[in-house]
C-alpha cells in the first residue's frame, strides 16, 4: 500500500466556464458538465520545470534593452504556498503584461497606445526554497478591449504557475489595489466569491519598496494543496 497525495477540490473558488458578461466564453465554454476524474499518478505528478527554463536577468523586466522603460518601476514579490500553508519551492513562475501605456507587444494588440522599445513585458523566475519569488518591472497600464461598450481592463500582470502537480496548474492575473475598474470588469467579476476575488489583488508593501527607485507590491499565490491521503495499491 502506497500513500498518494490527493489535491483538494477548490471549484467553489473558481470562475464558471460560461460567463456571458465575458463574451468570449459564450462560444468557448464547454456546454456539458465536466466529468469527474479520480486523481491518478498522471494528475498528482507534473513537470518540475525550474532553472533550465530561466536565464539570467529573466526576473527583471526592466533590463535587457538599450534604455530604461517608461513608467513607474515596481517590485512584485511574494510566496507561493499550497492551501495547507506549505511553501511551493523551486517551481517556475512566468509573468507577462502590457507596458505602462497599456499596450502589449503582440501583433494583434490594436490599442493605439505606444509601444516602448525598452520594454517587452515577459519574465520568468523560479521560487526559492521557501516558495518566494521576486520580479522587477513597471506598472502596466489599463487598456481598452472590445468586450462591451467602453470596456477597459484593470491594470494586471498575468501569472502562470505549475506547482509540483498537474492538478496544481494555475494561470491567473494579479491586480493592483484600489483600481476603480474592478466593478466594471467581467473577468475579475467572474470569480463568484468576494473574498476569493480579493486574493487576486496585490497589496502595497513598504518592506519591499526601494527608496528613490521602486514601489513594492506583495502578491502571495495559493495553489491547491493535498488533503488526507488515500491509499493506493502498489501496482508496480
Amino acid at each position, binding site marked *: 500500500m*502506497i*500513500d*498518494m*497525495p490527493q489535491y483538494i477540490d*477548490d471549484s467553489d*473558488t*473558481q*470562475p*464558471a466556464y460560461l460567463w456571458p458578461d*465575458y463574451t*468570449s*466564453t459564450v*462560444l*468557448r*465554454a*464547454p*456546454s456539458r458538465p465536466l*466529468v*469527474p*476524474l479520480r486523481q*491518478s*499518478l*498522471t494528475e498528482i505528478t507534473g*513537470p518540475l*520545470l525550474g532553472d533550465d*527554463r530561466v536565464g539570467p536577468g529573466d526576473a527583471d523586466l526592466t533590463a535587457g534593452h538599450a534604455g530604461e522603460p517608461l513608467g513607474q518601476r515596481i517590485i512584485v514579490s511574494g510566496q507561493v504556498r499550497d*492551501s495547507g500553508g506549505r511553501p511551493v519551492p523551486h517551481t517556475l513562475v*512566468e509573468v*507577462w503584461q*502590457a507596458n505602462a501605456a497599456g499596450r*502589449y507587444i*503582440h501583433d*494583434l494588440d490594436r490599442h493605439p497606445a505606444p509601444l516602448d522599445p525598452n520594454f*517587452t*513585458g*515577459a519574465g520568468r523566475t523560479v521560487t526559492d526554497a521557501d516558495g518566494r519569488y521576486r520580479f522587477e518591472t513597471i506598472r502596466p497600464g489599463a487598456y481598452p478591449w472590445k468586450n462591451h461598450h467602453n470596456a477597459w481592463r484593470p491594470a*494586471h500582470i*498575468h501569472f*502562470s504557475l505549475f506547482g*509540483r502537480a*498537474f492538478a496544481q*496548474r*494555475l*494561470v*491567473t*492575473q494579479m491586480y493592483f489595489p484600489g483600481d476603480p475598474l474592478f466593478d466594471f470588469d467581467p473577468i*475579475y467579476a467572474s*470569480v463568484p466569491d468576494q473574498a*476569493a476575488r480579493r*486574493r*487576486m489583488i496585490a497589496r502595497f508593501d513598504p518592506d519591499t519598496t526601494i527608496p528613490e527607485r521602486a514601489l513594492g507590491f506583495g502578491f502571495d*499565490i*495559493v*495553489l*491547491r494543496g493535498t488533503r488526507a491521503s*488515500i491509499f*493506493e*495499491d502498489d*501496482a*508496480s
Partner: protein
Amino acid sequence: MTTPSQTVGPFFAFALPWPDGPYAAPPGTPGLITVHGTVRDGSGAPVPDALIETWQADPDGRFDHPDDPRGRGASGPRWFARCPTDADGMYAIHTVKPGPVPSADGPHAPHLTVCVLARGLLRQLVTRVYFPDETDANRADPVLSRLPDPSRASTLIAVPDGNALRFDIRLRGDDETVFFAL
C-alpha cells in the same frame, strides 16, 4: 484558500511559447510521434489563440517525479510539451508514447493529459489523448470505460493520420471533447 484562475487572455504568445516547447521528448528520440489537431469553438471556427500543454508517463508508465511511489521514471526528456495554436487553430506536439499507468481502479491505458488555455477560458480545460492502437487497454481503461455518456469516448482517442496522430479539440458543440474535473 486558493487563488482563483483567470483567463490566459489573447496576448501570451510573446511570453509562454518556448522554442523547444512542442517537444516532450527531444528531436531524434527513437519512437518520436507527432500528435496534432485543430482546436475549434462552439461555432466550429478554429481557435487561433489557444495554448496546448501535455504531460505524461515515460514509455514504462513511470513519472519523472518524486511522488511516483515506484521511484522516479526516466529523466532526460521533459515529458511536457507546450504549443500555441496557429492562425488555423492547429497545434502539434512531439513525444514518445507512454506506458500504461497503474491505479487503484486498474491500469490506465497509455495517455497524455492535456491542459487547454485560451482567451475565453476563465480556467484551463483538462482532457486526455488516448492511442488508437491500444484497443484492449482502452476498453479496460477506468476513465474511458466509465464515462457518463460512453458514446463520447471517441473524443478522447486520437486517430491515425499518416505517420502522425490527430487529436482535434472541440471546446463546445455536438461533438464536444470530454473535459475532466480533477
